């Protein structure tokens, strides 16, 4: 099975170790993983800001980079949601292109969804010492139905204990450019999320989308908490011995 890894721009720039964690998880599960070198961004920042052309440009690029693979996997619910739910509507006048994008979209998966739904992973040889509380990022949850997959996988991590927070499905306030355009509301929403997460006294706040994690961690640190870890689910699943590259 040839899998194209869509690293996503945020992981590429901010947290490469999440990309390597995803790579390791897929390889351990027996996939042949390729990272197409020309990939960049899915186009969501522009698309959600009202620039449809951003979506179109990046959809074409995505198609060129990934069409040849059996599956495409991304460690992000929101980028996968962009591809799966929005690429298809970008070219209403070009049915051939639309058809190709639809076909590719159906083979594109969020990482934990792919591991559980397609690969049916039932055993992870990894270890995490501590308690975890999981934040359900909005796009993964509501566009892709990612809810039980990360929990099921974390259940296979030796030592990891899940403690659900109050309202894990409540938005953290990231929302892409929203977090800058309406920063004051975003900060308040991040505050609420931090409170709910901290109330569990978990050692780590874990999620599946780096944008949300930066938002939550950014608020936590500003509030003076520099002990609670904020981790991507791939980091937890791949285990601590993961190379930093």
């Amino acid at each position, binding site marked *: 099975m040839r899998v194209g890894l869509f*690293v996503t721009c945020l992981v*590429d*720039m*901010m*947290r*490469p*170790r999440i*990309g*390597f964690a995803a790579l390791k998880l897929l390889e351990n599960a027996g996939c042949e993983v390729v990272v197409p*070198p*020309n990939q*960049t*961004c899915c*186009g969501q*920042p*522009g698309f*959600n*800001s*009202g*620039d*449809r052309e*951003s979506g179109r*440009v*990046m959809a074409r*690029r995505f198609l060129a980079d990934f069409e040849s693979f059996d599956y495409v996997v991304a460690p992000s619910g929101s980028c996968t949601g962009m591809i799966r739910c929005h690429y298809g509507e970008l070219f209403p006048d070009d049915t051939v292109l639309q058809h190709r994008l639809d076909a590719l979209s159906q083979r594109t998966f969020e990482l934990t969804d792919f591991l559980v739904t397609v690969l049916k992973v039932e055993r992870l040889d990894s270890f995490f010492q501590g308690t975890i509380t999981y934040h359900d990022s*909005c*796009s993964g949850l*509501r*566009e892709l139905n990612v809810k039980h997959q990360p929990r099921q996988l974390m259940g296979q991590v030796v030592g990891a204990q899940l403690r659900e927070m109050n309202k894990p499905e*409540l*938005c953290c*306030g*990231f*929302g*892409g*450019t*929203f*977090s*800058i*355009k*309406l*920063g*004051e*509301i*975003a*900060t*308040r*929403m*991040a505050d*609420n999320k931090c409170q709910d997460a901290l109330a569990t006294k978990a050692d780590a706040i874990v999620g599946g989308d780096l944008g949300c994690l*930066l*938002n939550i*961690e*950014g*608020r936590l*640190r*500003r509030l003076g908490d520099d002990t609670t870890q*904020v981790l991507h689910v791939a980091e937890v699943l791949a285990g601590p011995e993961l190379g*930093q*590259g």
Partner: protein
Amino acid sequence: MQLTSFYFKSNVRRKLIDPLLQRNMKRFGGRFVEARAAVMTEVDNLETIRVAAAAIRDRSLANLDSYLVAFEEQALARGSQVHWAETAQDVNRILIEIAQSNGVKKIVKSKSMVSEESGLNDAVEAVGIQAIETDLGEYILQLAHEPPSHIIAPAIHKSLEEVAALFSENHHTPRQTDIPALCREAREQLRPHFLSAEMGISGGNFLIAETGSVVIVTNEGNGRMVTTLPRIHVTITGIEKVLPTLNDFSTIVRLLTRSATGQSITNYVSMLTGPRQEGDLDGPGQSHIILVDSGRSRLLGTEMQEALRCIRCGACMNHCPVYQNIGGHAYGWVYPGPIGAVLTPSYVGLKNALDLPQASTLCGACQVVCPVKIPLPELMRVLREKSFEQGLRPWHERLFIRLWRGVANRPRLYALMTQVGVRVLSLLGGKKKLLHHLPGLDGWTDGRDMPAPQGKTFRELYRKRRS
């Protein structure tokens, strides 16, 4: 209603630091959310009913012209008088004409959000007619000289203590300490008005084309008084509220009350079909129905048409994490929350409410609970596209988006820029790996640190690893 949507950002700033509002919003918190979730478990085929309800609304809107004409015919046959108001000003003009030609001095009103659109109360008071709100929430707000902050619970931003103080001050009575006592006091104040008013005004949740009926769905009973006691009853409602048949209504109402307050059914569901007929024991002598366009027909046939499906349950705002933190007043017009972020720019003009379509993380919580499946995030995105295309967004935002598009479409340039960028940011992040301030990104760093990047991009590290 005074439009302040243009000042959304400064409204937000004030609301976020208003301790009383914040406390009241927290107290209100998830009450409607929990009630809705609990009562929806009664419905074992919720998704099927939602699909059916959306289809009913779509059918109504696709044939709005013929259903409206059918409604008018039936309403006339039952003795109602039908008036067509193209604009908000027309609403006030028509209403004042009816009132003046019948010597009306006092009006009692049950809740009508459409009458808020035209600022009806101020307009009738300007010609010397008294208008008294009789919905408890609206009555409170009339005393406080405030607009509603929620479409079904208009005074949700007020605490019991604030209401008690307001009543005591206005009624010259001792301050009450519990809700039943406050309700009784309001009732005692309102009863003489119900009995002496010559005109009652209500909204209309739905118009039934096959019977010419106006349906109102209420809890307090004031709706019954307003529509039956005074000698004239006037319904003010939007043209989009028409449903083809009573059968359609029976489908929709199953979702309306459950989505709104989490009730299986409200205390009152009233079908008002014309004035008092011969042999009737009660009812108004005259029944008028003002059908309001005021921007609605402009949405027909456009990508915004789905917004007109709205049945005004308020579930989208109850579930909206933005609304939950800022309350309804910040949105600056009649309809707050996600549906307001879509309707306000559509009705009052995008340039007058520029930030409203941006006032969402597109988290999708609204769309998931909407009983008629309005794709609210999608509609906000459509409005964002219009803002972008019409050049209404700030120049630096447009520049950034175009630049990013250009860079992201040139992999080599992207690789070079990101490599340099993450090194610089990583260095600036220092030992704690946190950026406390980023020029141009104050929106972020005013309230949050930015965790610094690791220092090298994935593609650099990956290439090294492969070689």
